[in-house]
């Protein structure tokens, strides 16, 4: 496949129903923090974007959404070209102004503090971080509590940002301000809204 066709192909085959399906998975994930929700490979985008990341982008982004992308994504003309062609997103270099952040290298990502947390009057004016990871079978098991969780949920993303526990505690402490996380795995996604309380599960 040539670079040009890579950019123009791989969008949703049914824009309306595919995006509805992905959105419902996202809504389910956000309403049930840590729940791993399976999704089909509905969109295919050039590397480093995975199918799930591409599907989330095609569902949530348009020219009203400003998106901060990390270096590996920015470095790929094909990936950026795909995002622009299929979503019309506005790429921003300033994470504190972004509605969304697209992160392919989770361990190297900037701190949560770099992104918009909203204001106390408009806590919704915050960045939603989309973290692309390998799977939900990571070594570090996290115990989740909070709205959307009946008792406890165990969550084990394969990658986490540096100093995640400290960063998350600070994010939780800033409530109602804060960032929300969406994890894009292989064939599945999950979310951590700012309300979730996280502790490390004892082995």
């Amino acid at each position, binding site marked *: 496949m040539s670079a040009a066709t890579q950019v123009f192909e791989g969008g949703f085959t049914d*824009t309306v129903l595919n995006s*509805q399906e992905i959105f*419902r998975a996202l809504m389910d994930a956000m309403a049930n923090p840590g729940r791993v929700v399976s999704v089909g490979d509905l969109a295919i985008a050039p590397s480093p974007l995975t199918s799930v990341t591409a599907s989330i982008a095609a569902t949530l982004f348009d020219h009203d959404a400003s998106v901060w992308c990390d270096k590996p994504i920015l470095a790929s003309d094909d990936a950026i070209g795909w995002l622009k062609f299929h979503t019309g997103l506005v790429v921003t270099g300033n994470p504190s102004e972004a509605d969304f952040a697209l992160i392919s290298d989770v361990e190297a990502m900037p701190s949560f503090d770099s992104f918009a947390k909203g204001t106390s009057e408009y806590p919704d004016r915050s960045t939603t971080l989309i973290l692309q990871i390998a799977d939900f079978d990571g070594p570090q098991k996290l115990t989740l509590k909070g*709205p959307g969780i*009946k008792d406890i949920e165990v969550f084990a993303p394969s990658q986490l940002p540096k100093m995640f526990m400290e960063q998350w505690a600070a994010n939780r402490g800033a409530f109602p301000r804060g960032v929300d996380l969406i994890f894009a795995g292989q064939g599945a996604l999950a979310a951590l809204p700012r309300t979730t309380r996280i502790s490390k599960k004892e082995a």
Partner: protein
Amino acid sequence: MTELATYNFAYLDEQTKRMIRRAILKAIAIPGYQVPFASREMPMPYGWGTGGVQVTAAIIGPKDTLKVIDQGADDTTNAVSIRAFFQKVANVPVTTRTTEATIIQTRHRIPETALAAGQTLVYQVPIPEPLRFLEPRETETRKMHALEEYGLMHVKLYEDIARHGHIATTYAYPVKVEGRYVMDPSPTPKFDNPKMHNSPALQLFGAGREKRIYAIPPYTEVVSLDFEDHPFEIQTFSQPCALCGAKGSYLDEVILDDKGGSMFVCSDTDFCEERQAAGHRGELSAPQAEAAE
């Protein structure tokens, strides 16, 4: 002449759905906080459920089964009209059974049958701001929410007690969500407030004219405001439903004649019919009435 208008699946264009969907995700992440959204004109009037309709239209898909109620009933005119709208523009299966529905759009009631995980309850909201009648200005109420300054609301409720001996708010009774935001549950009778607490279902609220979306995720703490010496209490009815004999359901008073005769029946028509189908009888239901003749 202009070409006949064609509409997208579920009426709304995709860009509008994306905008609403982004607002819904934010609303779920900040329970009880009213997310502003660019509400659209809908083909039904503002105040007639445009917020709920926009939320439902943004989330609904072919795998859903939709139930629409108004005053707890599936057969009230506005419920019929909204259900017919979604049948037409989204061609989704519809039901009157609470247990069969994946999405329930409601005005003024929460079903009596306990909701289950995986169900979404979409409320139509006229005035989303619980502080609006204490302070008409959005610029002020927004500050009050930001500063968690809810004293005025308690003062109002307490004034009721001083004047009437009761909290005189019977519907749209304010709640506090997850210990942070004071929220308007929409004009449901306060009878329904306890059902919001720790519900396994996702609750979404859409206010079209006022351009706000808010949410309560499943298993979230929802507490009705009250005082130690005047705890929150719900309305109780002195008699059971005249049709299905249910005790502890919310009843509507139906006027039978112009001499003061009336009867009380379940406001939730599905709940009442299911009970009757299961053999429950009230004092005015068919067999007893025949026996009396």
